[in-house]
């Protein structure tokens, strides 16, 4: 294995993150630890899958990796790379035109204004909006909005792309197209963190996987091993609840 591939981009060591109830209250609530003990390293060029059931802390973890929020304990180091969550229709305003929204959204996602303007033709083509690009967003159907949102987000290429469950959007044909585009990007040399509760998706697209359960990393390693352990655990739990019910 070459050195480039081993280069860590993000390192997490026993990271914990808690939410506290805000404001002044007479009886302060104890903090709720969404992440308790998360440890893994993200290497250059790999696609890392994050797997876990609902409320395991996956989305909070993604917001931490994106630099939106900060951890409360443990060590989290970003070795100097841009990391961004793939988010669609960010900052969209109904009163502005599709073009204006594309520029605003693109800047919010980390592009310079002239970069978005330079890629406008690609955005219009990918979103198949044509002349509608200069119509106000309030006249768009939800499918058109989804197409524009995806086309803009697709232009943004951070060092680390964070994807939360979202692969394809829009109507049937655009869903196929956007899913294909996303899969192509994931399979490329880009560094990606992909969140899903679907073990199949993770196994199909990722090199390595992290399994998180109630804010704790339960397993890190090659995707097949981790998803197999995850699946066994799910089966065990299902059997357990069934036996509890039958009792």
């Amino acid at each position, binding site marked *: 294995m070459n050195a480039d591939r081993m280069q860590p981009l993000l390192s997490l060591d026993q990271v914990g993150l808690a939410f506290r109830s805000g404001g002044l209250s007479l009886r302060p609530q104890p903090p709720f630890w969404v992440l308790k003990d998360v440890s893994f390293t993200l290497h250059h060029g790999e696609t890392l899958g994050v797997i876990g059931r609902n409320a395991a802390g996956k989305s909070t973890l993604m917001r931490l990796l994106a630099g939106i929020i900060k951890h409360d304990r443990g060590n989290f180091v970003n070795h*100097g790379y841009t990391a961004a969550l793939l988010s669609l229709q*960010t900052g969209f305003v109904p009163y502005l035109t599709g073009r204006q929204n594309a520029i605003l959204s693109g800047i*919010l996602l980390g592009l310079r204004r002239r970069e978005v303007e330079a890629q406008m033709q690609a955005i219009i083509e990918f979103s198949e909006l044509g002349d509608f690009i200069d119509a106000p967003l309030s006249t768009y159907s939800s499918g058109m909005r989804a197409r524009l949102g995806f086309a803009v987000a697709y232009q943004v290429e951070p060092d680390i792309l964070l994807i939360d469950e979202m692969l394809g959007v829009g109507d049937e044909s655009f869903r196929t197209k956007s899913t294909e585009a996303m899969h192509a990007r994931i399979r490329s040399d880009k560094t990606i963190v992909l969140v899903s509760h679907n073990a199949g998706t993770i196994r199909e697209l990722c090199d390595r996987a992290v399994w998180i359960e109630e804010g704790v990393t339960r397993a890190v390693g090659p995707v097949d091993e981790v998803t197999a352990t995850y699946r066994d655990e799910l089966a065990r739990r299902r059997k357990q609840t069934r036996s509890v019910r039958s009792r």
Partner: protein
Amino acid sequence: MRDFLRSEIVLPMQMSHRGIGGGGRWIDPRMIDLVLYKTYADLRAEAAKTYVNYLWWVLDPILSMLVFYVVFGFIFHRGGEGYVPFLLTGLVAWTWYNQTLSHAGSTILNGKGLINQVYVPKLVFPLVTFLTDLTKFAVVLCVLLLFLLISGYSPSASWLALPLVLLTQLLLCMALGLVLAAIVPYLPDLKLLVGHLLHLQFFLSGVFYSANDIPEPYRFWFFLNPMASLIHDYHVILLKGGWPHWGRLTVIALLSLLVLTLATILIQRLDQVYPRLVRQA
């Protein structure tokens, strides 16, 4: 291989790049892009909501001036020679201050959807509001100057001091606005209080009465209110062709600059705390 990993230079959190800005960097070209374009977008969006669009920027202050004119000119018979220009000058300056501070408190709170989706330097939100309010004020100021010229007031040399007074007011608005923007997410109750405090300050700022009506012994206390001092300066410059009170102007500018710097540091420090706060709020 192990040695290679260990020799990796670990950058502190603040140095890490993320989305726009990236904690440690103060002026990021993308942040300027964002502030400018978001201001433009907000102004466009606001105008698009109404039928006569941009006309409201002028219409709104004119209507509110009319109300004051009716109340104080007719009902309280405070009229007399030059009362209307006097009233309008003070009101224009006051409205800018009032609008900026009423808007500033909720700026970061209003961005709660956005700041949980992408990394955005939180300073962007108050800055955008300052710029939109400044733009609207600029239009109204032009209308005021035009009105003064038509009413027979001619520009004097002292009008050259006007930009300095305007700049000082901008610093004051930004300083107090940033403090509100920084604190209101922690203490939403403050926003309700601010409305009443502004109301009180309006009556103490010499908009519909002259600072010269204040008895000499109370002048010092009267001018402790920075807006009273600034509005008096506007009156002196625009209506009497005199020069502003340089001493008070300097003190206001320097104190504002100090508060502005502290509030900026505070907001930068709490950059990654706000997304959690506003999510719970």
